[in-house]
Each structure stands twice: as structure tokens, then as C-alpha cells.
């Protein structure tokens, strides 16, 4: 589904990613771990199409199609979703209004009519339940005054509504307490299927206890320094990153 080949990325002349290779097949869950500043969030932003980053070498394929020339919204229309590490506030725009605009924009790009309001509301209600969210939440301004945990839940809620093919979860676990993490993970697991793929970006092992990855990669100073199965994550949990740095 997602093929990243020899990707080099820089911002203002500074090289952030130095030759990333990553292959994610449909139905798989991958985790990228790494210490602060290793380039994890850069990688997720580049896949989503953030403009400030410059790809100097290498390319990205999504379902066999080169996507690096596509705009962020075009990538979203193809089915790429990024759960933000720091979700952005949009004052005065309610969660419902935003998700409706989002879902219908994606549908329009795929040549579909707007989703009828009743279907939309039904779908929204169902998802709210899955993520243990209050109805009031729908009328609040998008991310404005949300706690860290609420912001993350809102991201996952939107993911479930949009039903993307590839979901990149950038530090979705940070800011969530144990109970919230369990609920959100449960929702992600329910969403996971043979038809989609998930890329989890995290510092810690704890979310991987709930959402078991098929592959774990370690990113360090802009390079993938190690890949393995879920055991690698457990090892990192025990020993930290320092032993890898020496590799």
C-alpha cells in the first residue's frame, strides 16, 4: 500500500530524513519508535504532504501511485489520514460541522453525493459510543479548550468517520491516561481490518500493548536503524534507545 523509497527530506537546508525505506502492506500494523528529534513526526508530515518540507531524493508510492506531487487534500482523498500530535484549534467551528465538511469533501472528490444528514448523524453517534465520548463534544469548537486527551480522541473519532486506507497515528498515546488509552486503542482495533493499514508513531511501548504491531522500526537521526517484530518494542521498553544507538 505505502512504499517509501530512499527518502531524503530537508527543511531550510537542514537534512532531516536521510534515506528512509518503508513498505507497508494492506492489513498490516507498523510502529515507528525513536527518541525525540529522530524525525518521526517529519516522516508523518511528509507522507501527509506538508509543504514546508523538501524532498531532495527518493519518493513515496501509495497504492502504486507516486504521491509526492499531490496536495495534502488530494492525498486525503486517496485515503491517507494523519492523526496530529498537536491537533489544531479552529475557533467557532463545531466538531460536527468540521467532520461533516471533511466527510463530504472526501466524498465529493470521489464523485459521491453529500452524505444525507440523518446517515451522518447516525454514524457520528455510533462512533461517539465506541470512543466513550459525550454528545456535548459535538457542539464544541474544534479542539478549542480541549484537554490533551480530548484532542487525541477527537482525532481518532475523525479517523473512524473518514474510514481511511492508511492511518498514521502520530503520538496518539501521549496525553492519554490509562483508561483513555484503553478505550481509544479498543476503537482503533475495532477499526483495523484486512482492508486498511496503520502506522503508529510513538516513543513508548505502552500503546503497542493494546494495538499489536506486525512490524516495529526504530528511527534514529533520520535513519531507520533497526526493524523487527513486536519483540523489538519490548526490548526497547526494557533497555531504552541507547543500545540501538551503538549499532
Amino acid at each position, binding site marked *: 500500500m505505502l512504499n517509501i523509497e530512499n527518502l531524503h527530506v530537508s527543511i531550510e537546508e537542514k537534512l532531516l530524513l536521510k534515506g528512509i525505506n518503508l513498505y507497508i502492506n494492506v492489513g498490516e500494523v507498523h510502529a515507528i519508535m525513536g527518541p525525540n528529534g529522530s524525525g518521526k513526526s517529519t516522516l508523518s508530515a511528509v507522507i501527509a*504532504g506538508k509543504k514546508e518540507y523538501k524532498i531532495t531524493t527518493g519518493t513515496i508510492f501509495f497504492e502504486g501511485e507516486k504521491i509526492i506531487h499531490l496536495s*495534502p487534500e488530494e492525498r486525503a482523498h486517496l485515503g491517507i489520514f494523519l492523526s496530529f500530535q498537536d*491537533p489544531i484549534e*479552529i475557533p467557532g467551528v463545531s466538531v460536527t460541522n468540521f467532520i461533516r465538511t471533511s466527510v463530504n469533501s472526501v466524498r465529493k472528490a470521489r464523485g459521491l453525493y453529500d452524505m444525507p444528514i440523518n446517515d451522518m448523524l447516525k454514524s457520528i453517534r455510533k462512533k461517539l459510543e465506541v470512543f466513550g465520548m459525550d454528545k456535548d463534544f459535538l457542539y464544541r469548537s474544534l479542539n478549542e479548550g480541549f484537554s490533551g486527551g480530548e484532542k487525541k480522541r477527537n482525532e481518532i473519532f475523525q479517523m473512524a468517520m473518514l474510514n481511511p486506507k492508511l492511518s498514521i497515528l502520530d503520538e496518539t498515546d501521549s496525553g492519554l491516561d490509562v483508561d483513555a488509552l484503553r478505550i481509544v486503542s479498543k476503537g482503533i482495533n475495532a477499526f483495523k481490518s484486512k482492508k486498511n493499514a496503520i502506522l503508529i508513531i510513538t516513543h513508548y511501548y505502552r500503546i503497542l500493548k493494546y494495538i499489536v504491531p506486525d512490524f516495529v522500526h526504530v528511527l534514529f537521526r533520520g535513519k531507520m536503524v533497526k526493524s523487527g517484530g513486536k519483540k523489538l518494542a519490548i526490548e526497547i521498553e526494557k533497555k531504552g534507545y541507547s543500545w540501538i544507538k551503538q549499532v
Partner: protein
Amino acid sequence: MREMFSCMKTRELKDFDYKYGFYTSIEVDKFSKGLNEDTIRTLSEKKNEPLWLMYWRLDSFSLWKKMMEPKWGNVKLKQKQYQDISYYSAPIIKPLQDPSLEKTLKKLGLSLEEQKRINGIAIDVVMDSILVASTFKKTLAEKGIIFCSISDAIRNHPELVKKYLGKVINKNDNFYASLNSAVFSDGSFCYIPKETSCPMELSTYFRINEGGIGQFERTLVIADKGSYVSYLEGCTAPQRKENQLHAAVVELIALEGSEIKYSTVQNWFPGDKHGNGGVYNFVTKRGLCERQAKISWTQIETGSSITWKYPSCVLQGDNSIGEFYSVALTKNYQQADTGTKMIHIGKNTKSTIISKGISAGKSKNSYRGLVKVFSKATNAKNYSQCDSLIVGNECGAYTFPYIEARNSSAKIEHEATISKIEEDQIFYCNQRGIDFEKSVSLIINGFSREVLNKLPLEFAIEARKLLEISIDGSVG
């Protein structure tokens, strides 16, 4: 009102998508250009007005001649040649039987037949100088509510007109108001009897059709003791190269314990991309509140090349309340200098000002407001909030708040913010599949939500669409 701003294609739309830029060819009775005492006499005679009104007009005219155009606005304008416009233009043919008029109304989304079936809104249409269509008169009459053209009111209810015309906005109030007092041609009149709640929204739709004319409409709304009315006005004009003048006067009288809600969606032709043409919208709007009365102004200003208007409240009675909610959006070379005046005279008077200015392109958007507390106005309270949103790097947003308090018990709060649409916000929306233009309009609508929520529901939906249409193609 449902279809008021709906899409339509007309032959005059070329590089600019102002949707109401078409012109209807209708035979008109139009004065030749120029203004003098004779013009006013002829106008008054044509309208079969009583003598007192003709003298009132002439009086206004002589006051106006001594006045100068105000220069204090934060706007640049071309000198207007007042002798170079026509002061009266009326569609000749018996209005409702004229198919081309009916067609125009339809284009504007105002099918009167259909309107009759949609409950809840009674509507008047003023084209150029006269009122051409009206609905629901009977239903309203049963409650004793008068809703008609001001010309009809002058003929049929002279006592009310004589008593209140010019009461809030004196004939020497300002340059444009005096000009209006001298030459106003038509407009709406509304009277709500004591303890009566008007069962539907009253609405007037203003349209400038002819070229080279000025529109000087005059609106007078009187809410008698303990009554309630919600009044809406909408405006459009054809697309022309010259600047058309629109100098209206709106007076509201809220007698003891009554409430008037006055909403405007102003979408006059704003001029083209290069700043040519467009309507000069120089309007004086003011309301008078007696004891425990309330006046609430809500305005969505997206049109006109220059907007100069300050819907105000004179809080004369004790415990009276004034409110002003405004969204002003400017783009290209548009200029808006708008705000309000809250004049606290009575005790325990309260006012709220929420102003949202959105500037895009090379436009200039100013909030100008005055909160004045007289010495006898014990415990007066005001809360003002002025927020500006900037789209792009070439526009300007300005705030000129004036406060004059002569009573130490007054509580006056003023908050102001200025913000810009952030790249991160756009990226976030984009990532969710929302394109750039839609993202901007979403953010603008969110920014204006507090004000949009004050509009009657149907109007709010249209206003939202209008904000989206207006910003199209003017960012990036």
C-alpha cells in the same frame, strides 16, 4: 428568503462572480440629473405628499447645502458629483403585472407567489425608488400591524409619520442623512401596536436597478409599548462601472418595554477586482429606546465598494438595552468603516457590541465605535468585543474605539483581538480532505459564529453561504 442568494448565471457576469450584477430593462419614470428646490417640489408633488413634508424636505435641503461631506472616515473615495445623478427613478408599469419585473424578482430568488406559501416572512421589495411588491398584508392587518411603503404610510397614517419621522435622526444630523431627508423616495414603514408580538419576520429587499441614480430609502419602524418585531433587510445592485450612491436612513423607535430586532444582509455590488465601480453605501441607522425597551442590530456586510455606517442606539429610558452584532467582510479594494454608537442616557442601561471584521485582498476594514455615558446614567454597562481576522498580507484592519463616560458608576469593558489564518490551520483542514478555499470559508464562518447565531435561522444559512461566495477567488 430561502433562495435569496442562490446561484444564477446572467449575461453580465464575466470575470467576477457577483451573482446579482444583472440589469433589468424596465420602462422607468426617471428625473433628469441634478438637484435643486424644484426637484424636491416635483418629487413631493409626484408623490402627493402633504405640504408639511414638502417643507420638511426643503428645510433639509437648505441645511444640506451648508454641509460638507465628512472626511473623518478611514476610507478613500472619489468626489461624488451630486448634481450628476438622478434623484428619482420608478418602474412605470403596474408592478406586479409586469412580467419582466416578476422575472427580476425571481432571479433575485424572490418569487412572491412562493413567498406567500412559505410562512413566517412578510416581504417588501423596493426597486430603485419605489416599493414594487409586498406580501402578507392581510395577515398582518388583522393584528393591527402596519407594514407598507413609507409613501403609503405618509398618505394613510400621516399622524404616525409626522410624529416620528426625523425624531431619532434629525434632518441636520449629518451630510448624507440630510440629503436623504431632502430627497428620500421610498422605503419601508412598520408599526407594531401595543402588546403585540409580530407573528412573522418582516423583510424588505432593496434593489438598485437603474444606472446613474441614487437610492435614498427611508425606513421607519415603530414598536409601540410592550410589542416585539424582527425585521430583515437584504440588498443587491447591478454591476456597473460608475459608483452608485446609496444613502439610506433607518430610524427605529422602541417605546416602553418593546423590542426591535433589526437584521441586515448587505450585498451591494462591491466593485470589480481592480476596485472600479461598486456602491457607496453611506447609511445612517439609529434607534431610540424608551424605558425597558431593547434594540438589537445585527449586520452582515459583504458588499459595497465603500461602507460607512454605524447602526446606533440611544438608550434614553432607564433599564433599556442596546445590542450591535456585526460581521464585515472586505476583499479586493473594498473599504468598510463601520461600527456603532451606544449612547447611555437612562439609568441601568446596558449595551453589548460584538464586531467581527474580516479583511482580505487589498481591502481596508475599520471598526469605529463610541460608547458614551451621560452623567445621569447611573450603573450603565457596556461590553465591547472587536475581533479582526486577516487573510493575506496586503489588507488592513483597524479599530477605533471611543469611550466617553461622565458617570463614575459606569462599567465599560473593551476587548479586541487580531488574528491571521494560520498555515497550520489550513494544513489541518487540507489533511482532512478540505481544499484551501473551503478551509478559509470554514475558518471565517467559525470566526463569525457568535454574530451569525444572532440572525433568524433562514437568514443565517444564507449569510453563511454569502460569506463563502464572497471570499471565493480573493485569497491565495
